[in-house]
């Protein structure tokens, strides 16, 4: 399971490896008005209740209300579920549910050869075919010959099913997604009751709508059943049962990266014993963090939607100065705007957490697509010598711990910290074994409240080289800070050459020193030496992990190393990498982490790059491993 609830032995085998492992990838695709995200979300819950492991990925159009039926208005939701460990939303779908011609056109090329297409023929009108730029109806010619195609008039079947409830045409057709979900539940032998309960809850104020949707759901389910018997005019629909995965017992929930950031930050502040101030500015795909936190005021969270990205971080710095933990969040373009203020936080040595949900760049780039191309920006992207800790999360569930870690480092070392996630992590959902918050070790901050022995010096340092955190309002500790170079210890303005050298060294040593307070680098799968190490960071974890498992199952000498602490790097990482003949670094950029590793350790790390706005497929990494070892 992506949340690491699975036990993996050191051969990289999951504990369930002796069962025949099964996994299926289903993609629901339709017009953005068709409710595909809801369908996917409920199918996910059903998978969880069936005991499957899973990972999901939604793919929204960039436009808010794209014209109906158009190619760019297609919204899709993919789920990979199975009886064994699942780390990614899956490579190629086995099943594609296409609610209109545009959904078919934009998604069919991803479908596995021989995969199954289920299409709503009721939407394949000449008009919709035209909008999808089809010259002929693909359901009626042989253009889909390499796949199995089942089509029927879902629109009409839904209308028939909900007729007794007297809905208008438009409302009746809205139930199409529940009809489809009913069919999908039948195909995978799932219980309908939890979805019925959910519909009753969702439409508690409108009984008719609840009943209509339930009727549609039941009708879709019944259609699968009767079609199987082979009634005249219907096509048999295959049914499959995927057995439950072997996961650790406990309470689970689905979580998206954006939720996990919010919860992790709240947990971190709780462990630090400080209140949180969150300054944000709307930007895709980071806004959800602001939304979640805005509902958590009772956890001592103040949220502030600032006038721009710069004000968002500047206000967070002001709050940190005043004694709360300032947090700001954005995506690449917004982070670029925050650059100067990040330097101010570094210069004034105030704690701050900066979350970057990376998206495709440069400039506005691909706002709704994922990429890892802000690594240089995070590690190097400021004026002056301005080192800053950087932590990267690998999955939605992992963000929770990473956010706590970011708060810990920020408050313990009095430094801004960058937390990297990406569009995939922000939007994807995965099952998460809810941790016991009592298991996390508190790291309470201590504000300096009186003049220490030997007098108060704002830039004096503890053994971690952190300076004291003093809240304005504290008598006897008046002082002034700012962005101009500080004098060692006193913090007064000082432009002298020797002082600047000394302060630059202190700032560098402080951040470098964090390496002694983070875990040593481990190897996720495989030996700590050998022929090939696949080194990853961030959301490439899933596909790398699966690819390495598969390669090892074939007997290849390959290990997976996943790096969470991007800066400073774990102190043993260089030595570890040198124990492999070859190092390959798959990244959704043109080779940024590869370059950092080469620079830091003089290892001959090679890149494997993908910048299509889509996550790596397992097969792509598997092929690269085979290539390296050939």
């Amino acid at each position: 399971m992506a949340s690491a609830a699975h036990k993996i032995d050191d051969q990289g085998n999951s504990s369930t490896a002796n069962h025949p492992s099964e996994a299926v990838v289903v993609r629901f695709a339709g017009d953005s008005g068709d409710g595909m995200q809801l369908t996917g979300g409920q199918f996910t819950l059903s998978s969880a209740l069936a005991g499957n492991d899973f990972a999901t990925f939604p793919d929204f159009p960039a436009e808010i209300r794209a014209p109906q039926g158009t190619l760019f208005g297609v919204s899709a939701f993919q789920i990979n579920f199975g009886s064994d460990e699942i780390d990614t939303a899956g490579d190629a779908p086995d099943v594609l549910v296409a609610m209109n011609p545009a959904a078919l056109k934009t998604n069919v090329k991803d479908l596995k050869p021989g995969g199954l297409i289920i299409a709503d023929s009721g939407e394949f009108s000449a008009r919709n075919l035209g909008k999808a730029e089809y010259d002929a109806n693909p359901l009626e010619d042989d253009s889909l010959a390499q796949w199995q195609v089942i089509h029927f008039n879902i629109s009409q079947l839904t209308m028939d099913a909900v007729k007794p409830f007297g809905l208008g045409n438009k409302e009746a057709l809205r139930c199409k997604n529940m009809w489809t979900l009913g069919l999908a539940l039948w195909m995978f032998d799932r219980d309908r009751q939890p979805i019925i309960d959910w519909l009753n809850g969702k439409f508690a104020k409108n009984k008719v709508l609840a009943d209509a949707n339930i009727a549609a759901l039941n009708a879709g389910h019944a259609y699968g059943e009767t079609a199987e018997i082979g009634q005249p005019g219907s096509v048999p629909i295959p049914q499959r049962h995927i057995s439950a995965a072997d996961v650790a017992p406990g309470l689970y929930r689905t979580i998206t990266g954006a939720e996990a950031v919010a919860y992790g930050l709240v947990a971190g502040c709780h462990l630090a014993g400080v209140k949180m101030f969150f300054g944000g500015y709307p930007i895709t795909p980071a806004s959800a963090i602001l939304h979640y936190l805005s509902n958590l005021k009772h956890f001592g969270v103040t949220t502030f939607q600032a006038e721009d990205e710069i004000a968002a971080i500047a206000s967070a710095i002001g709050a940190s100065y005043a004694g709360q933990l300032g947090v700001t969040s954005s995506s690449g373009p917004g982070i670029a705007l925050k650059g100067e203020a990040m330097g101010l936080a570094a210069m004034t040595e105030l704690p701050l957490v900066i979350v970057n949900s990376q998206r495709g760049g440069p400039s506005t780039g691909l706002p709704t697509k994922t990429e890892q191309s802000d690594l240089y920006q995070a590690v190097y992207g400021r004026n002056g010598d301005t080192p800053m800790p950087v932590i990267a999360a690998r999955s939605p569930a992992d963000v929770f711990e990473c956010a706590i870690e970011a708060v810990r480092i920020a408050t313990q070392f009095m430094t801004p910290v960058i937390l990297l996630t990406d569009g995939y992590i922000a939007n994807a959902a995965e099952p998460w074994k809810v941790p016991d918050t009592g298991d996390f070790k508190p790291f309470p901050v201590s504000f300096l409240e009186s003049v220490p022995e030997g007098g108060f010096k704002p830039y004096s340092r503890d053994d971690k080289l952190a300076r004291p955190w003093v809240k304005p309002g504290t008598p006897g500790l008046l002082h002034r800070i700012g962005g101009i170079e500080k004098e060692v210890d006193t913090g007064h303005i000082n432009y002298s050459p020797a002082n600047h050298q000394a302060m630059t060294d202190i700032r560098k040593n402080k951040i470098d020193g964090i390496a002694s307070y983070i875990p040593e680098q481990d190897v996720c799968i495989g030996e700590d030496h050998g022929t090939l190490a696949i080194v990853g960071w961030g959301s490439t974890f899933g596909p790398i992990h699966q690819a390495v498992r598969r390669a090892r199952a074939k007997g290849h000498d390959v290990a997976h190393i996943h790096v969470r602490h991007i800066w400073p790097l774990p102190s043993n990482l260089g030595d570890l990498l040198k124990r492999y003949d070859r190092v390959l670094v798959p990244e959704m950029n043109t080779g940024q982490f590869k370059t950092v590793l080469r620079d830091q350790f003089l290892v001959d790390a090679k890149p494997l790059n993908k910048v299509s706005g889509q996550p790596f497929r397992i097969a792509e990494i598997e092929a690269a491993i085979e290539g390296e070892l050939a």
Partner: protein
Amino acid sequence: MNDMTPVAKSSPKDWETDQEVRWCPGCGDYAILKAVQRTMPEIGATPENTVFVSGIGCSSRFPYYMETYGFHTIHGRAPAVATGVKLANPDLDVWIITGDGDALSIGGNHTMHLLRRNLDCQILLFNNEIYGLTKGQYSPTSRIGTRSPSTPFGSVDRPATPCAFALGSGARFVARGFDVNKNLPSVLKAAHAHKGAAFVEIFQNCIVYNADVFASFTEKANADHQLWLENGQPMLFAGGSKGIAMDIDRLTLKVVDVADGDWQGAGVIVHDVTNRAVAHMLVEMPFGAFPMALGVLYDDPRPTFEAAVMEQNAKASEGKVADLQALISRGQNWTVEAKE
């Protein structure tokens, strides 16, 4: 600002730091620093609860010279930093020190939003109509034709009017003073007494790069061109020989002569600090034909931003327990039972 009961009244000296003041000799900033240090005891401020936040520019060095908490931030961003300070601790008395370039050029956006939101603080904008620290380029308040290193043939763009900008942004307190004027502490006092964002434009002489641009009304000999506004008092200037009246036909202000103190007869308006429409007219009066309006131009408080935020935070928390375990457990969840 806050209601604070001083234990023992401080003296202006108590507000000086040990740092050497580094403005050019003769710079108007010295006089403003003195005025602020004189004001602090008057308003009963306490050093530990006072925070000076500044941006970048000559004026922004100010916090280093005040024996309080201080934060010399980055160019234009003082209002944003101050917003975070005040939201994190509304009990602090926050002063923003800024200049014409800092507040109206690079930081114009933040100034506008701080005023619109009505954060409780004092904003002192030192207007010298020039970029001093970067050696004399023209600024957003420089008059057309200003010759500077970046405009050797004279600037061609129209200047901004800081107080008009402030009012347009929704400011609820707008005042004006100038560096060497003895009334400055009383203007600052009024700003501090105003609950909410108090915007004060202070004309400041940059003796090096823009000397004497305000001499036409700041010089003793030109005192007749100063219109000192006082709430409830007629708008008289030039020793009471002239006044400001309303031109009803054109709905504008006009200058009228006042004979023998009969200002009522001349139609001179009585200053009402809560009259927003008149405030707009006062800040827009073209200097020359009109005097320079000084003192408190507008003062009409309304609820502050940080108070509204605190109130909402409290309301949203009412009856709710901050149970972290419950928070992370809720949502779409299920239990996997242990296998026998």
